[in-house]
């Protein structure tokens, strides 16, 4: 994925530092190997954590290393090696007697720490379940009118065993991609100036053209300036509810949905 990076940094030295496909958009530098990170972490806890914190984000006695320019500009110990060996005696940091391998491991650990800060798409979501399940059920069956289309013993039965809370939260708000592939499609009815109306699944629409797949499976295309189009979007109520939810409603509904195991 990052051939140029590897070429620039030296083929042999960087061979073990790989790019992550999943994080490629956010992580633009090679990812250090996990075993080096693990060794570096152990070393860090022993030698560095008392001043810089176990997560390297700094404590009262030592600065944040995750955002340190020396750490960020470092390549496999090139900058932090000399600093570690000499220390900053005037600022209370002693020099350390470390091997090249130990320094490279520490460099790998610190790179892992910075990449954990950079890769926001991997920040863990937790403590999502703060709502009141009973209040959620009341909203589901009351103000939200969710029960107009859904049933806890019907289409939503076993919902919580299929999805984690983080998935459920975004999916119940607006089920982009459908409920496990069983979502009702958007349909439309087209009324020409003359001739019969045509109904079917909405295949495509823009300001100029509408394409339906009719009940017999044929694709039917119309210029929009010649027809009237009525769209029946089964998710319209979800979009409407976004304007209605308080954050409490939202948390309550999630708390209720996770009870549907």
């Amino acid at each position, binding site marked *: 994925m*990052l*051939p*140029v*990076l590897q070429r*620039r940094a030296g083929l042999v030295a960087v061979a073990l530092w790989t790019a992550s496909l999943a994080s490629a*958009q*956010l992580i*633009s*530098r090679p990812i250090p190997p996990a075993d080096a990170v693990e060794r570096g972490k152990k070393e860090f806890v022993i030698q560095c954590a008392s001043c810089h914190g176990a997560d390297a*984000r*700094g404590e009262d006695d030592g600065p*944040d290393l*995750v*955002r340190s*320019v020396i750490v*960020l*500009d470092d390549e496999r110990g090139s900058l932090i090696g000399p600093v570690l060996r000499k220390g900053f005696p005037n600022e209370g940091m002693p020099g350390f007697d470390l091997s090249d391998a130990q320094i490279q491991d520490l460099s790998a650990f610190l790179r892992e720490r*910075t990449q954990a*800060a*950079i890769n*926001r*798409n991997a*920040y*863990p*979501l*937790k*403590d*999502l*379940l*703060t*709502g009141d399940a009973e209040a959620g059920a009341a909203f589901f069956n009351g103000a939200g009118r969710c029960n107009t289309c859904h049933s806890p013993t019907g289409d939503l039965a076993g919902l919580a065993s299929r999805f984690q809370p983080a998935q459920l*939260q*975004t999916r119940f*708000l*607006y089920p982009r991609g459908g409920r496990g592939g069983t979502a009702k499609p958007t349909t439309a009815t087209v009324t020409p100036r003359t001739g019969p109306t045509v109904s079917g699944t909405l295949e495509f*629409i*823009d*300001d*100029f053209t509408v394409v339906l797949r009719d009940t017999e499976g044929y694709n039917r295309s119309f210029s929009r300036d010649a027809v009237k189009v009525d*769209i029946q979007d089964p998710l319209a109520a*979800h*979009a409407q509810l*976004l*304007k209605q*939810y308080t*954050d409490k409603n*939202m*948390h309550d509904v999630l708390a209720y949905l996770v009870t549907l195991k």
Partner: protein
Amino acid sequence: MKKILLGALLCAGVLSAQALDPAKLLQPPTDSWPTYNGDYTGRRYSPLKQINQSNVGTLNLAWTRRFTAGGGRGGGGPVSIKATPLEVNGILYFAAPDNAWAVDARSGHELWHYTWETTGGLHIGNRGFGMYGDWLYFETPDCYLVSLDAKTGKLRWNHQIADVKQEYFCGPAPMVIKNHIITGVGGDSLDVPGYLESRDPETGALQWRWNTTPRPGEPGSETWPSRGSMEHGGGMTWHSGTYDPELNLYYFGTGNPNPVYAPQSRSGNNLYTCSIVALNPDTGKLVWYYQVSPHDSHDFDNVETPVLIDGEFKGQPRKMLAQAARNGYFVLLDRTNGKNLLTAPFVEALNWSKGLDADGRPIPNPDKEAKPDGTLVSPTEGGAANWFAPSFSPLTGLFYTHASESYGLDWKTDLSKTPEGYGGRNQTIWMQNLLQAIDYKTGKVVWSHRYPNQGGNRSGLLSTAGGLLFGGDPTSNVFAMDPVNGKMLWHAGLQSAVSNGPITFGLDGRQYLVVGAGDSLYAFTLPGH
């Protein structure tokens, strides 16, 4: 100023048949499109009217050309043309991350293709070139300012303008004002400080630097709780702005403060993030500022183009500046001093804000800050508006912008006293795209075009004296509307959605419309011309 500029260029011996005459920078665009926005006003309004309401329905494809990336990260990969091409003396110049091209404007024939060997950085997009005489300037994702010879596409020099290892990345079109090449930077991942720099067009030497966030003791530092918070406070400068030659002020918008979604370590308004600022381009000194999103915690970069409007307001002629901000508010300022004239929402349901203060500034709603269990925020991270170019037509007095109504979830993931990076996450839940026509005198949306699709592309816009408003829709059409009422007058389906802002120019008595869509440029003209 015109004389001084011409003199400087002639002395340098760079004014050639292909060179940009600096006088063009001070005129409405007709036979050239010499800057990102066509001229310094940011209006993206062309006085050309060969293509007009009576004949736009016959607009024809003159040529289309597909471009393939070479070298760098994008080697052979897909190109997305977010750059607005410059058109100077019959040649189009545009860039994409690590790639730049010159193309004959009459035929689409490729004249040269330059590739940059990257060292990394986020390859989100490149907005294109700035031009000075025979010389071109663009920024690379790994934050080099690269100058090319417009004749050959050969490298003149490059200068690093930010450290990619600190997670800066770069892509705005450099702004050329007199003998200043003004560059900006991006990057939100590690709480680096934002700044704007001016460099010498001949050598690339630094002329001045303006820091978005103050240092301890400087004005504005009272809006941050600590040295660390302002030094790590963000405020990126990732989009080019506008310029008033009479006032000699450069206007641009600044990005969001950092950490993005976890503001607990940066109590206060966090100047000069999420602001419109006016700098003296000769010195880099701040002349005035207006903060559109005080203490932002929703990633509402305020970099949207500050459009310069000369016209009447409440019966008085005024020099004004208008912006449709990412946070969903339309703001009209007196651009001589930054005083607020008007603020009004241009989409519905801006739940992140509790209303406006006495100076017209939106007041954030602390209840809608990100929380561990999520808050439902409107608009979502992508904003009610964003970088795509708006347009202002002096004929209609309307400000046009693509916009979105949207909802998203904001989660705070870093609850520590000293959060880092984003400190939280966002997920867009739902988005509906619109084209809004705003009366600058009232802030009211006079007409609104609601696309029949959810989500999708939002393009830049162009208005002309031909009574036309050009843009791209969320699917893959380029269109012309009646700017008075939004009625569709012409469209053409392209291979992909319009990914930049349309431009127009005249060559040989023929008016061209050029748009970028994905990896291709498309040029349209009238038959018989």
